[in-house]
């Protein structure tokens, strides 16, 4: 019974995932662009790394974390809760940006 209980919400989440992003951030020349993005709760942001150097997208408070994104790799995250999400590149932590979820 327990297994079924956990499996159902996961399935729902997968089918509800949008095929497109509501906002996109490009990573180029060691910067996130735009550095400040505002979206609504339930919307999705995608990041794409255009640098030859890998970067990551890591929430300062632990809400989300990408793998190392090599050139042209993307990361997608759906923001369910309103708030201000600061994030950095864990490989180059001088790179900082913010997602604001209304």
């Amino acid at each position, binding site marked *: 019974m327990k297994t079924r209980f956990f499996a159902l919400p996961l399935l729902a989440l997968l089918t509800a995932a949008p095929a497109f992003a509501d906002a996109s951030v490009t990573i180029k*020349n*060691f*910067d996130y662009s735009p550095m400040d993005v505002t979206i609504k709760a339930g919307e999705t942001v995608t990041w794409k790394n255009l*640098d*030859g*150097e*890998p970067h*990551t997208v*890591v929430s300062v408070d632990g809400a989300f*974390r990408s*793998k*190392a994104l*090599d*050139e042209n790799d993307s990361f997608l995250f759906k923001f369910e809760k309103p708030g201000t999400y600061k994030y*950095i590149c*864990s*490989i*180059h*932590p*001088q*790179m*900082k940006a913010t997602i604001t979820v209304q």
Partner: protein
Amino acid sequence: MNDHSRRDALKCLGLGTGTLFTLSSGIFGAVDLAQAATHKDIGTPLFVQISDSHIGFNKDANPDVIGTLNRSIDVVNALPRKPAFAIHTGDVTHLSRAEEFDTAAQLMKRLQVSELHVVPGEHDVTDGPGVEFFNRFGKASNNRGYYSFAANGVHFVALVNVMDFKAGGLGALGDDQMAWLKDNLTNVPNSQPVVVFAHMPLWNIYEPWGWGTAESAQIAQLLKRFGSVTVLNGHIHQIVQKVEGNITFHTARSTAYPQPQAGVGSGPGPLKVPAGELGAMLGITDVTIHRARKPVLADITLT
């Protein structure tokens, strides 16, 4: 083999990118690997430093990082007097992937040394906890990453400054590791040589690119009472040196690709140079110390 032919043989190995550290009168010297073969007075060989092999990197700056790591290992293995062990100061891999670690571990098995000490670079722990890194290299530190050991009367300290970044981008040890370091050094006598190594510079070289460590001043304070301290790191893929009192700070070149000098260009990414110039960018810059108690620093390139 005479001196001349040995030197030529080492040169033929190409991009030897390692630094041989020797102990002479209790003071450390970093000796150019190509010159070590011909050197008459280089003290007792202790260890070699390899850094930033970035296995998995495949961009224009060096499409063959496996080849250049292999050639670096060849240079180490060709040393006429064998170092007891090797240290790798991090960024073993480029993207923390299991297959990259597997390849690197396989390659480094060829190192003819009795021990290999490895500290993680930020490229090795992009997943956060560094699962793949610690699976392979965590044993020496009980999966903590930082630890100390002794060899030839020298106190060695391996530190991790890539898993607790501070705002602004500097590396950091964090409170627990700082407390451990202070405690670890407490019973080491002033006269005992100390070697400290980590991936990112333990001294602040260029803060806008995060080339430094948040606790650098406290670390220097802990080390200044010792008569001979050598602080080593990788991360910046080029040689920068500083001597402060009895502390010699020395960064290592990469076995994979060069990076720009501090502040040149948009960021510290791979520096593409004409193919014929790569050898000179990966060549060795060394510190040599012999009988005198003062370090002598020398920059030497292989090509």
